[in-house]
């Protein structure tokens, strides 16, 4: 596995990107709140550029260890999904979210994001 972009970590929150056989996996861990929203914004912006440049068709968001996300982070994801939806269909990529079944909020929050971009985002059980 080849690391892409740069992993970021601050104040109990980390984003670790990994390229694997199924595409790019982004491991989100900890709590994403107002102290870390700018990190998430910057990362998603760089990720989008990298995926479009590399032509990957799938990004997996691994949220197994993501314990909290505030509404500003929800908005960060909405902005990212809006950018993906704006791509020409052939350049568009899919986002699959792996959730933790013991954290019921993840289903609620990511399903809301999925409803905003059903053609792009799939929430995996």
């Amino acid at each position, binding site marked *: 596995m080849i690391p892409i972009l740069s992993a970021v970590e601050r*104040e109990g929150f980390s984003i670790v990107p990994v390229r694997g056989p199924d595409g790019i996996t982004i491991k989100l861990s900890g*709590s994403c*709140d*107002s*102290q870390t929203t700018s990190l998430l914004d910057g990362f998603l912006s760089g990720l989008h550029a990298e995926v479009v440049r590399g032509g990957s068709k799938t990004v997996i968001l691994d949220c197994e260890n993501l314990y*909290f996300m*505030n*509404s*500003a982070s*929800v*908005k960060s994801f*909405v*902005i990212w999904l*809006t950018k993906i939806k704006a791509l020409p269909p052939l350049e568009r990529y899919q986002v699959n979210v792996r959730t933790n079944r013991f954290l*019921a*909020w993840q289903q*609620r*929050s990511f399903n*809301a*994001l999925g*409803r*905003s971009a059903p053609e792009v985002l799939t929430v995996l059980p």
Partner: protein
Amino acid sequence: MTHPVAGEVQTIASTVIRWNVRPPKRFASSVRELVSDSYQGLLDTDEALRIAMAAHEMVENLVKYSSDGKSSFEVEICDSDGRRYVRLRSRNSAAPEDLQGATRLIERIQSAADPVAIYDQLIAESPGRAGSGLGLARIRAEAEMDIACSAEGSQFTVVAERRVSLHGTP
């Protein structure tokens, strides 16, 4: 302000936090953890986490919009007509434009017949819009709490409430 909890109200437990200076951003996380840790023993875990999320969103708004830094946040479990409720209350002074904007948003969110539909609508509107109201809509849709607000001069109060079942009580 119309509270979903009306009539004779008895407080069972309450926590009040007051700030005389603007609290740092991390206070929202500290309050969320306090609420989560304090109420997981009394409530179903997911119910406690929904309320903790709502507390986080409300305190982030306090930190962001308090015009003089002075603010308070209160968590209360109360009994009204034999039913148990959790009530979150935030108070802060706010600039007139922020106060009017927040009042309009809360009225729009609370008056919507379908909390999820208004949440989806605000999500769709949120890119490029500051003060999008996502946190407030999330409180109603994801925490399943009723929200209300009132203003007295520059003092702004937001209340979020939901019915709960306490462990070991009817």
